[in-house]
Structures are given as C-alpha cells and as structure tokens.
C-alpha cells in the first residue's frame, strides 16, 4: 500500500470484485474474450502499455550507443530532428535516457509488483482460509505494516545501502507494499471458503495449499490479476519518488532519476521543459494506462459494471 496504488484500496477492497463463482457460463474463456475485445478502456489502456513496453525494449538497441548518459553534442538544446527530445545541460540525449528509463521503470514495476503479489497471496490466502489464531496473527502483522509509511522505511533502508540497483529497489518495494492487497485477498477468501465446492474438496482430503490453489485461487483469478496490475503501477510510482529523492539506482538511468537531475540542475528555472516533461509524462502514461486497463478488466469480469 503505497505511492500510490491510490485507487487501490478503493477499487480493490471495494466489493466491485469480479463476479463470484456460480455465475460461470458454460465457456467462461470465450465470454471473457467477447467482452474484452469490445471494451474500449481495456483496449486503449492495454495498447498504450504495450506500445510503451515496446519502446522500452526495442528503443535502446536501435540507438547508436549503449550509454544514455554519454555526452553527444550540443548542450541544453531544444528538441529538433537530430535529438527528438532535446539534450540536457550536459549534452546528453534526452530521448536515449527516456527509452532506457522506460526499461528500468517496467523492470521495477514487474519485480516490485510480483513480489508484493506473492506475499499478499500467501498472507491473504492463509489468513482467510485457515482463520483462527493464524488469522489473528497475520492480520495484526498486515495492519502493522499497513500503518507504517512505506516510503519512510524505504528512505532509511536505501540511505544506508551503498550500491543500489533497479532489482534491489524492486525487491524492497515489493517487501513493503503488499498489505492492502493481502487484506483484500483475505476478505475474498473468507467469502469463498464456506462454498460447497470447497467443502467437497476438504471432505475428499485435500490439503490447505491444494484447496487454496486448485479451488479458491482460480475462482478469484481475475481479481488477483487486477490486484497485480495495481501493485505494478504502485511500485512504479514509489520507485520514481525514491529516485527523485536521490535514492535511485546508482548506475544507469530511470525516469525518476531523469526528473531528479532535471530538478537538481534547475531545468525548471532555465525553461528546459523538454528535460522534465518526458520522464513524468512517461510515468503518468504507464501508470494511467494500467489503471484504465484495470477499469476495463473490471467491467469485463463484472457484469454489473458493464455499460448498458
């Protein structure tokens, strides 16, 4: 729960959870697809993410040199034909930094989002399915981590670490941003665990994890997927804040680091808008597209929300 899975607590914890089991039609897969390809929000959001991902993946190899921080020519020049996004005060190509930055932004989102999702699922399923004392302990732990401001913890951890990489940053973000998701999963599991099919599985002697992953998780797979998207976007935003404070990766470049150096070298006062607009727009585009795709997914999975 952190910078800013903002709509997260609301949308995720909201009972707008995708349709519960029982209503499943004969061929759930095809119905899903039917609505997915007709949902403009999902299409637009998803396409934007794919385009940005493609730029991040294909952009760097297409550049002349591999180092985005290299001196390439004119200093502080506005965008033109040669330097699409202009150059920094140090004669670095902003476009080269941007495409490399997109890469690390996606990386930190995937690592942070995946780690947070795994922890949230372990804690949420276990607390929700087993209940009792275990639930009490895990819920207490979740609440404690929820109340501590994540960024403040990350600040002091990062300040003490000498060398920082994008992967380690993602790891720490993942370790601190799981609580709201764990709470949401716990609540969902709670409502599923008394269903007949779960009872049946329990009677047939299946173990906890087997029931959780065979019976419960598939019934909320769409919900889990949407949760991962929100964690992914949240991780990107936290990482950009850390980078901005000067606690980003010590090597390479990221969108947050670009914003930081623009701020540090007074791009604002010098009117070099091409230095600080692209990185922020990149982050906003990725996270915004993820959120919009998420709303689209919600409408696809949840018949109640479909526009009539």
């Amino acid at each position: 729960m952190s910078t800013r899975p903002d709509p997260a607590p609301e949308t995720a914890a909201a009972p707008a959870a995708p349709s519960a089991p029982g209503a499943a039609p004969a061929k759930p897969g095809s119905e899903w697809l039917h609505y997915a390809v007709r949902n403009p929000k999902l299409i637009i959001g998803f396409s934007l993410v794919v385009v940005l991902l493609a730029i991040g993946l294909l952009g760097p190899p297409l550049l002349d040199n591999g180092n985005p921080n290299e001196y390439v020519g004119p200093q502080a020049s506005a965008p033109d034909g040669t330097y699409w996004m202009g150059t920094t005060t140090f004669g670095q190509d902003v476009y080269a930094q941007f495409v490399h930055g997109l890469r690390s932004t996606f990386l930190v989102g995937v690592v942070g989002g995946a780690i947070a999702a795994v922890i949230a699922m372990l804690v949420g399923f276990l607390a929700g399915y087993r209940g009792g004392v275990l639930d009490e302990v895990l819920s207490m732990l979740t609440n404690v981590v929820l109340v501590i401001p994540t960024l403040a913890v990350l600040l002091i951890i990062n300040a003490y670490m000498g060398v920082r990489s994008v992967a380690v940053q993602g790891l720490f973000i993942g370790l601190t941003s799981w609580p709201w998701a764990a709470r949401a999963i716990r609540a969902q599991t709670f409502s599923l665990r008394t269903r007949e099919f779960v009872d049946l599985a329990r009677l047939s002697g299946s173990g906890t994890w087997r029931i959780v992953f065979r019976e419960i998780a598939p019934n909320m797979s769409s919900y889990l997927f949407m949760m991962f998207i929100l964690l992914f976007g949240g991780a990107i935003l936290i990482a950009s804040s850390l980078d901005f404070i000067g606690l980003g990766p010590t090597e390479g470049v990221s969108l947050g680091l670009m914003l930081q150096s623009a701020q540090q070298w007074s791009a604002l006062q010098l009117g070099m808008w091409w230095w600080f607009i692209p990185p922020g727009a990149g982050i906003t585009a990725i996270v915004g597209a993820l959120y919009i795709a998420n709303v689209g997914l919600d409408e696809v999975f949840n018949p109640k929300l479909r526009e009539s």
Partner: protein
Amino acid sequence: MRRYFARKLLVYALTFVVAVTVNWMIPRFMPGDPVAAMVARARVSQPEAAEAMRSYYNNLFGFDEPLWQQYLHFWGALLQGDFGISIWVFPTPVGDVLLDALPYTLGLMIPSVLLSWFVGNWIGALSARRKVLDNTVLPVGYLLTAMPYMWIAVILAWGLGGKAGWFPLSGGYSLDIQPGWTADFALDALSHWVLPFLSLFLVALGGWAIGMRNMIIYELESDYSSYLSALGAPQRLIRRYAFRNAVLPQVTGLALQLGVLVAGALVTEIVFAYPGLGSLILASIQNQDFFLLQGAFLFIVIGVLIANFLIDLVYVVVDPRTRTGMAGGTS
C-alpha cells in the same frame, strides 16, 4: 466499541515498537558502515585523527556496547524525547530541528488531505450516474492519480510559477522577511504555500473522486437500492442512502492512504524547497545525517499513528455498527 478500540490501540502500539526497532536495526544490520562513511566524508588526512573520529562516532552512536544494551538505550533515550544531535546542523538536537520544520509540513498536509477528500468525494458522488460529468471525471481522475507527485509539482511550478509568474517558485517565505506573527509574513507564506498545496490536492483528488464514484455505483446496484426503488421511494432518498454507505469505505481509505500522502508531501516539499520535513530528509540524506533521518522517520510514524487514531474516532461517529459493538473481528 471497547473491543474495537482495544484492537486498534494494540495495532498502534505494535506498529510503534516495530517502527522503532526497524529504525534501530537498519544502521546496524545493513551492508555498509555508517561510521566509515562519516569519517570518509570528513576527509581527514592523518590516520590518527581519523581513528579518533571513528571512536568518537562509535561512542556517540553507542556502537561499542553489546547489542541488547544499545537497543535498550535507544528506547530509553527515545522515551525521554532524545533523538540525538544533528550532524548536519551540528550542535542542535534533532528534536529541535524537526520541530522547526513541523508547522510547514502540517500546514501543507492537513488542508490538502482534508480538502481533497471532501471535494473528491463530492465530485465522485455527483459524477456517478450522470453520464456527461462521468465522462470527464473518470479520465481526468485517472490521469491525476497516475501522476507522480513531484511531476505535477514541477508542471505547476513551470506554468503558474514560471510562465505566469503568479506564485514564487521555492521556499516557505521570502528571504527578506523575518518569520513571525505579522500580516506581511502571513501573506508572503501564503503565496509560497499555494503551489505545493495545489499539487498535493490535485493528485489526491482524482483517487477520491474515482473511489466514491465506484462505490456509489455499486451501492445503487445493490439489493436495498432496487428494493427501495421497487417500493417507489424517490431517487433522492435512494441516493442519500447510497452515499451514506459509500462514504464508510472512503473513511477507511483515508486511513489507508495516510502513509502514502505523507510520501507525496515529502517529494512535493523537495520540488518547492519548502522548509518542512521533506526538505530536512533530503538534506539529511545528502549530508549523511543519520540521526536526523531516523528522527524524521519516527516523527512521521508518530504523526501517521495519531492521524489514524483520529480517523478511527471519526469512524465510530459515522458507522453505527462500531458504536453498538457489533463490529466483527475484521478491522
């Protein structure tokens, strides 16, 4: 209700203990040697002098004692309000440095948190089921939530501060004015306050509007709404019930979001060089002033806990179930 508060207080007490422990553990168990870093930073040429500094710092941090003793001392000092001495502004105690910055941070946080919550919920409630408004609120809301705090701050500073020249770009007050209880200072501080406030307000606004809109739509689809409308109840009444039910999760959401909003305030302060906790944290990181950094962390944690407690109090007022003691185990 007693059980509700007992639970909440237990969580808060545990959170505080965990936060203090984390704060104590990090310099001791993280890779990297804070003392060596500080000695290196001082650039002392003679090895004897460096050695003297090293032992001085080890003694100051208490690194020369056994671990359990260090931990107890840390707690003891903390409970006496002793956060250590700042290295950045050397002889000043960390507590004093933080208290000077606190009014600026609170002056920024409290209005932006509360106003964005009220206005956001209002816009969200209006936009639910009103197509024209909904089609603008939703995209704008998502755009605002997706924006990093510092970026919207930079954009505002560039547009309203630089291009239009309406507001000063940085600082908490003009340098030629003496801080004090005068009208001149108040006006000056206010003009410096507008841009950071706006950037915090706008980013948070989107999230609340979208959350409220979704909740209201959900409530209007629910059984009791259909039942009411089948009974022929006026639409206004149904909407009022829907609003009342939708506002509860938003109150919980406010508690959940506090830590995040603090983070937003910190980076926004850095953009505007606003003299609050965020700027102090930046300075403490750049100057490797770990006492100041740890003190700021604890200040933030205490602030978030107090704010959460206040929200719990509000929750009791708005949710009748907590009052009658019917609230179940889930918090």
